[in-house]
């Protein structure tokens, strides 16, 4: 193997093994920052040694053993340092050191719970959102600082700072490497899901020709979602989020059109949708709904599951005309009750306009406009223009599209709105 082939092999192993390695090490060190550094040390050692020695027969085991030995070294140094002050000259780090056995157990055991602890710790609400995202990608995705920087279009130093600060905050606030108790579970899980969905959206909104690290964020978020669904299989919203991401990701190929411009859902070539991801998404949605219905409290259907159900209505339809708009309108109604927002209401107006008729849709838009919170939102004008055009109120429609074009800061969107106005 050439050096660069070995390098790529080490990277692949790192992607597969790093999270489990860090999770196991964090269990014994009780310090995610230290655990991450110990695992990194093992990676660096591999990168130094393997080009000379060749890739070992069991490379994953090699990484674990190396990290384990580093952990024991560091522990002994601390013990020696602590005890030197009082007992000089006595050998302390003997083979019966319970720490050694504990490290062995931690890295050999089923690590499911440790992995979950690691996820909850990296997504701890005590950290800023930027820090949560960076630490999650670093500890659970095995991404390098450079990759994180490129994915979020920030200088590498900024990404490095976010990780350093995150570790410092965890240590400073003495955040335990533990699973949240039942009382804080829903808040903590919401934070985890928010981080995963933010990573997904950062990739999903990336434009064509952007650094490949950005679209790769979608895959990473999906992977994290799938891992999470395996670790907390009884939480409906985890499956809801997975379903939402799988179905949205299924449209990746169809949503970039000529010149790299985004293609709206209504205009996408549905034959390009990824059927495997749709199938997985629908299965995850069914699981989420089944779990939510099984819970006693009625609030068990969460916003991710509802959004996934909306995405599923589109995924099941072979055309805009054959879409179950009445169901989508009803789901936006549900979403609006969970998550009151004029943007959700505007989406409901679009669905009602399709399901019932443009006049009914327009009534909802006018009610939103009257509340004024979306006064300068270009989509409000565009939706209003579309409904007015369908009602034959052409002059009013033109005014709305021109207004939308004036309000948007996105050049592509602007040309779409102006074209609509001109075509009336």
């Amino acid at each position, binding site marked *: 193997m050439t050096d660069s082939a070995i390098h790529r092999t080490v990277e692949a192993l790192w992607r597969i093994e790093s999270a489990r390695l860090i999770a196991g090490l964090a269990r014994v060190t009780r310090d995610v920052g230290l655990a991450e550094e110990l695992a990194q040390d093992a990676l660096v050692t591999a990168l130094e040694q393997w080009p000379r020695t060749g890739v070992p027969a069991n490379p994953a085991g090699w990484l674990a053993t190396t990290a384990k030995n580093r952990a024991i070294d560091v522990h002994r140094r601390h013990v020696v340092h602590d005890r030197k002050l009082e007992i000089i000259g006595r050998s302390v780090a003997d083979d019966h050191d319970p720490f050694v056995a504990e490290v062995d157990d931690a890295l050999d055991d089923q690590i499911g719970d440790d992995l979950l602890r690691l996820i909850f710790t990296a997504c701890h609400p005590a950290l800023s959102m930027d820090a949560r995202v960076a630490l999650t990608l670093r500890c659970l995705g095995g991404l390098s600082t450079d990759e994180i920087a490129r994915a979020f279009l920030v200088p590498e130093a900024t990404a490095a700072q976010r990780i350093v600060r995150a570790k410092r905050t965890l240590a400073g606030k003495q955040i335990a490497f533990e699973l949240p108790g039942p009382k804080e579970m829903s808040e903590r899980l919401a934070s985890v899901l928010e981080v995963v969905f933010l990573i997904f959206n950062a990739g999903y909104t990336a434009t064509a020709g952007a650094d490949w690290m950005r679209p790769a964020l979608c895959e990473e978020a999906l992977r994290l979602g799938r891992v999470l669904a395996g670790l907390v299989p009884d939480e409906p919203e985890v499956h809801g989020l997975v379903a939402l991401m799988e179905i949205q990701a299924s449209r990746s*190929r169809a949503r970039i059109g000529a010149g790299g411009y985004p293609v709206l859902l209504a205009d996408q070539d549905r034959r390009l949708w990824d059927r495997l991801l749709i199938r997985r998404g629908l299965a995850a949605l069914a699981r989420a709904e089944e779990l939510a219905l099984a819970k006693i409290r009625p609030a068990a259907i969460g916003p991710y599951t509802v959004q996934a159900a909306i995405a599923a209505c589109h995924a099941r339809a072979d055309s805009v005309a054959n879409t179950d708009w009445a169901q989508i309108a009803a789901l936006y109604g549900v979403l609006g009750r969970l998550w009151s927002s004029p943007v959700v209401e505007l989406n409901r107006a679009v669905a009602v306009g399709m399901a019932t008729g443009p006049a009914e849709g327009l009534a909802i838009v006018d009610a939103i406009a009257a509340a004024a919170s979306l006064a300068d939102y270009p989509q409000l004008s565009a939706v209003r223009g579309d409904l007015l055009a369908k009602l034959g109120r052409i002059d009013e429609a033109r005014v709305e599209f021109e207004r939308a074009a004036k309000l948007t800061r996105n050049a592509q969107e602007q040309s779409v709105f102006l074209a609509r106005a001109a075509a009336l």
Partner: protein
Amino acid sequence: MRYLTLLKSTQPSEPPPSGLMEAIMNLGAEATAAGALLDSAGLSPSATGARVQLQAGDLSVMDGPFTEAKEFISYALYQVHSREEAVEWASRFMRLHQKMWPSWEGEVEVLKVMGPEDFAPPA
């Protein structure tokens, strides 16, 4: 990136050792838990399948079995970050055989499934 792995081997003269299937299922569970394995299944012998061929303008259907020395044994579909990662999962699969069934021989073809990254946006 998505990779399809296809396992090919001669029909073994002896049944697989006990424990191998269990180990394979455990590895599959591990790869699923890691978010890497999307789908996998074993393939029945070619005797149960057929081959549809277009040759010199003629369409023909041949029932199995086929005379190739090696048969397709199973497939797996992975979602990973690199070819090396797909190769690593395939190697782990083969290491189980190496350890538990030393006389067995076979090969895994690791094929990249075309994805959005392979298609430049239409000009």
